[in-house]
């Protein structure tokens, strides 16, 4: 894009340079490595010109008509402006002269700093920002050595006050740059910070309940140019220069946000974003920032455990692994290898999953492997991603006008918070967001086309789009297989009937099809809820979306493709490593319901006993259960042998994000106790089982193996995943860690290419086989994820306890009125044979006949098997209605 732009010539301190037209002066001068000091300006925020730090002298060398300006003698001349102008709000003109190296400008900078410091407490020695503080740095560079103001005239506030449990505000230090306010309003879409008061008494306040109610609040502490906003997490933990910064990745959502772990004395002191404009830019969610406490949690497993007479006892690795090998061997001998099943959690690294699958398939010989516990198995989404996934090289940050984002059943803010910021940014830049949801989610406010769809009708909607798109004319599918069948299949659909099932208006569907037709690129976000709600129709939904991308000609194009919002940090990677049932192997549902008839199980980094109460009986009935975990989870308690694994910060490895970006993370700490990285445990277990894998001594070796044997990962060795350092943002004094954010990134990884990107793509299209939408008695249940739930890892961050969701049930206003219920009333909910009493929240956007229940939150543990059957609930009022 940049090269299409018109360039203008400007002169910075006499040096001639070309920059794109319309560039702000503050950015333009970076072309000659001149950094103008700023406080309120931030490249990611709208400029406001509030702090006056960036004043520069500008002049014209061209007349209005574009001819060179001359003096009386006919020599070229520059007409300097009468006043200094703020560089952060002034765009460049052709022939503009900018001057910063004279007394006038230096005086202005010195003066602004002197004013800013009149009421600054100058408590740098106790300030957490000290050492990476723009105010400190700029004062050193440009400030006066003495102040002419009396210290006793400083304006004092009470020392820090909490803006919620996570963020502290020291009002004395605030310089009123409004970066925090603008971030919350513009970037995060949570307008919860405001200015209050006037003059020197001005201060930042939060007006939400709970205070500073945002999933992105930590980012304000990064961009605050002084120590006014600091986090509770890093409060007085260390000085910033004492930290060892280790590149790592967000261990929660599947976006793969790049982070830096700041460690000291064998502990994580803080987590900071690491800029990667292809993934998360410079922002991270609070979950990524504050959720690291599970690593240092005191209840981590530190030694292998063997259960004897119902009690666990400490064991050595050798003892434990020999026992596991012996018991697995016995099971194979007595019942065959098919009696062994494995559940491989989708949090573990590619290296771990690769070796585990290798052990199970090659050494033990069982096909019963699955990694899908939070996303239905057998939807075909893995194959769909391999065909038409978001093309490699795409950068969602580039999305803008012309892009259509089709979000089906997404809840970005709760499930993939970093991606929410990217999508919101794209919408602000002109992308069109089409959202189908059955309840209210945050992106519904951003979407230009929000569609309230009947839960379960997602596949019908996608098929209907195809039907209208085809419009009796078969598109050219090129070399793709199955095009004819697809066309014929879709044309048999009855548009009106299908439309009725979705509950949408015909105009809405026409609008969507028109938008798709005009789109220059198309990103399809497939939310977890859509797949779960679609139930038996989930494969049809996936097929229809693949067909939609192929039929609209967007498959394989840059910045287009399918993006399933997978549940965990490495859901994509473990599937790539083959941790899915194949050759008739049992799915996680079959394994956990007992259908698969397993006698022994190996469970890595999953807690089915807690998440699916019904699976407990199956696990108890097993002859042998070995669990590889960080914590003594409910599943681990049922185990015969528990193997302690190292947390992500205690090892190196690679994860694959939902955009198929394979990224490395580095070891920051030593493992706790005797814990070992998962791949090492697998390797030792393999040795105990008599399998010899030469040459796998480090995670790097295993990655080299992967690069050899997994097709998509060809060439992705550790060396290849580390590129030349990229600095997306130029910063004052060449700082690469500035305001906490690390701007230099060499660990951005690689994306693997989809089939559609090939020169002559040849994948097959499948005809969506639509089935009846399931109906049942009572309310259709939609299970919602909350960001701060009681998951194994995030539950260990006590800092977030105050924000953790408790149980609730959301009802539509009509249904609630029908039952005589108002907001907050307790109701009895009966779902999947279990009762709970929960308060009601009225959701204006929820479709009638459905209720929303949170997953993994206190008071409600109703998380049934996914992707099998729809759940229906009965709801009864728990108290008498208030007399009107």
């Amino acid at each position, binding site marked *: 894009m940049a090269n299409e732009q018109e360039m203008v010539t400007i002169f910075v301190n006499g040096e001639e340079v070309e920059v794109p037209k319309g560039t702000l002066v503050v950015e333009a001068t970076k072309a000659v490595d001149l950094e103008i000091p700023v406080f309120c300006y931030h490249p990611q925020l709208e400029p406001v010109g509030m702090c006056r730090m960036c004043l520069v002298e500008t002049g014209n060398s061209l007349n209005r008509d574009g001819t060179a300006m001359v003096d009386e003698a006919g020599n070229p001349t520059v007409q300097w402006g009468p006043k200094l102008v703020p560089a952060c709000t002034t765009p460049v003109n052709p022939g503009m002269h900018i001057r910063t190296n004279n007394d006038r400008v230096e005086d202005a900078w010195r003066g602004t700093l002197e004013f800013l410091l009149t009421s600054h407490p100058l*408590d740098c*020695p*106790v300030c957490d920002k*000290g050492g990476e503080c723009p105010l400190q740095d700029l004062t050193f560079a440009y400030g006066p050595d003495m102040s002419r103001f*009396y*210290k*006793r*005239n*400083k*304006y*004092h*506030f*009470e*020392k*820090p*006050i*909490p803006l919620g*449990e996570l963020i502290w505000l020291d*009002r004395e230090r605030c310089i009123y740059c409004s970066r925090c306010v603008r971030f919350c309003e513009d970037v995060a879409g949570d307008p919860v910070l*405001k200015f*209050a*008061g*006037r003059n020197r*008494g001005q*201060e930042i*306040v939060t*007006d939400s309940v709970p205070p500073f109610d945002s999933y992105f609040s930590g980012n304000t502490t990064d961009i605050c140019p002084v120590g006014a906003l600091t986090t509770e997490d890093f*409060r*007085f*933990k*260390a*000085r910033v*220069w*004492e930290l060892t910064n280790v590149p790592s990745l967000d261990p929660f959502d599947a976006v793969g946000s790049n982070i830096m772990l700041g460690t000291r*004395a064998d502990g994580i002191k803080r987590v900071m974003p690491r800029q990667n404009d292809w993934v998360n830019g410079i922002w991270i969610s609070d979950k990524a920032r504050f959720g690291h406490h599970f690593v240092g949690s005191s209840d981590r497993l530190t030694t292998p455990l063997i259960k004897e007479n119902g009690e666990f006892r400490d064991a050595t690795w050798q003892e434990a692994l020999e026992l596991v090998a012996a018991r697995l061997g016995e099971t194979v001998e007595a019942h065959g290898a098919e009696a062994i099943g494995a559940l491989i959690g989708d949090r573990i690294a590619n290296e771990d999953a690769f070796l585990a699958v290798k052990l199970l398939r090659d050494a033990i010989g069982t096909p019963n492997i699955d990694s899908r516990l939070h996303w239905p198995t057998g939807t075909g989404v893995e194959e769909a991603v391999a065909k038409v996934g978001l093309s490699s090289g795409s950068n969602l940050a580039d999305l803008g006008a012309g892009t259509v984002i089709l979000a089906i059943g997404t809840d970005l803010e709760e499930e993939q918070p970093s991606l929410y910021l990217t999508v919101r940014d794209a919408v602000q830049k002109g992308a069109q967001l089409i959202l189908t949801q059955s309840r209210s989610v945050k992106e519904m406010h951003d979407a230009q086309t929000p569609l309230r769809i009947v839960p379960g009708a997602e596949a019908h909607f996608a098929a209907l789009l195809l039907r209208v798109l085809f419009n009796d004319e078969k598109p050219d599918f090129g070399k793709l297989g199955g095009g004819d069948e697809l066309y014929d299949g879709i044309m048999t659909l009855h548009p009106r009937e299908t439309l009725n099932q979705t509950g949408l208006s015909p105009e809405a569907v026409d609008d969507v099809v028109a938008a798709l037709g005009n789109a220059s690129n198309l990103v399809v976000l497939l939310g977890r809820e859509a797949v779960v709600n679609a139930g038996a129709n989930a494969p049809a939904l996936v097929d229809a979306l693949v067909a939609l991308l192929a039929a609209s000609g967007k498959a394989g194009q840059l910045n287009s493709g399918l993006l399933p919002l997978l549940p965990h940090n490495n859901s994509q990677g473990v599937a790539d490593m083959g941790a899915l049932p194949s050759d008739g192997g049992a799915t996680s549902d079959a394994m956990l319901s007992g259908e698969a008839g397993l006698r022994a199980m190996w469970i890595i980094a999953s807690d089915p006993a807690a998440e699916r109460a019904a699976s407990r009986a199956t696990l108890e009935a097993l002859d042998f259960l070995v669990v590889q975990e960080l914590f003594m989870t409910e599943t681990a308690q049922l185990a015969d042998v528990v193997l302690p694994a190292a947390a992500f910060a205690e090892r190196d490895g690679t994860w694959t994000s939902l955009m198929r970006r394979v990224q490395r993370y580095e070891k920051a700490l030593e493992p706790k106790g005797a814990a070992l990285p998962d791949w090492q445990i697998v390797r030792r277990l393999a040795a105990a089982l008599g399998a010899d894998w030469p040459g796998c001594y480090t995670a790097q070796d295993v990655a080299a193996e992967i690069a050899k044997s997994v097709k998509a990962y060809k060439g992705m060795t550790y060396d290849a995943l580390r590129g030349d350092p990229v600095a997306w943002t130029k910063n004052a004094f060449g700082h690469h860690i500035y305001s906490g954010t690390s701007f230099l990134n060499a660990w951005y990884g690689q994306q693997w290419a989809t089939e559609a990107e090939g020169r002559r793509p040849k994948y097959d299209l499948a005809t969506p086989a639509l089935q009846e939408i399931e109906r049942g008695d009572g309310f259709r249940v939609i299970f919602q994820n909350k960001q701060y739930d009681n998951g194994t890892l995030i539950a260990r961050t006590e800092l977030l306890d105050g924000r953790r969701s408790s149980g609730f049930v959301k009802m539509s206003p009509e249904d609630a009125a029908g039952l005589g219920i108002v907001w907050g009333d307790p109701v009895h909910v009966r779902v999947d044979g279990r009762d709970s009493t929960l308060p009601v929240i009225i959701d204006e956007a929820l479709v009638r006949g459905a209720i929303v229940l949170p997953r993994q939150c206190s008071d409600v543990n109703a998380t049934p098997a996914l992707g099998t059957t729809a759940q229906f609930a009965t709801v009864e009022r728990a108290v008498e209605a208030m007399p009107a």
Partner: protein
Amino acid sequence: MLDAMIKGFGTTLKTMFRKPVTISYPEVKRPVFERFRGRHELKRHDNGLERCIGCSLCSAACPADAIYVVPAENTNEARYSPGERYAETYEINMLRCIFCGYCEEACPVDAIVLEHNYELASYSREAMIYTKDMLIVPPPPGAEGTPQQSYAPPPQFMENPSTHMNRAEGPPPGGRITTYVAPEEKVSAYVRRSLLDADRDGVIDDEEYRS
């Protein structure tokens, strides 16, 4: 050349007849200069509070990387130093220390001072890591040690009345008040000075300010 040799040997000869200076250490200890840099001490204010605010600047300045500081936050129930922050752990590895005094120079609150003790020998390496207990001086006579309780609520003049727009009166829920005010008779010159700084009531009075 001969001249110089005679002069040199002459000095030697003179010294041979001088009474030897033998100090029978350890019974007799050699006095040191006022500015001698010996073992460090962590100082206290007159009211017994620790001077050190746990800022780690000494450790940053130390060329031998001998100092390890872990900061923590003062509360009204357990107060160690004036202000918000204090050193929970403070250790100097005397085996590493080169007694350069940079730490003393870096300290913004004159907390760490190299004093006159030079008897630092020990039988183990571990014993050469001086912890905070070993480094901190006892409280001055009559003053309480640390931690202390702060009893005074934050004084009104620290608050700006115009800022109560969106907040309830008093400390916010769950808020920590870290403003420290000691009773008049107990306050040290240091604390009194910072209180004075905070008093914005009077008009600017040059005389008073300078005195």
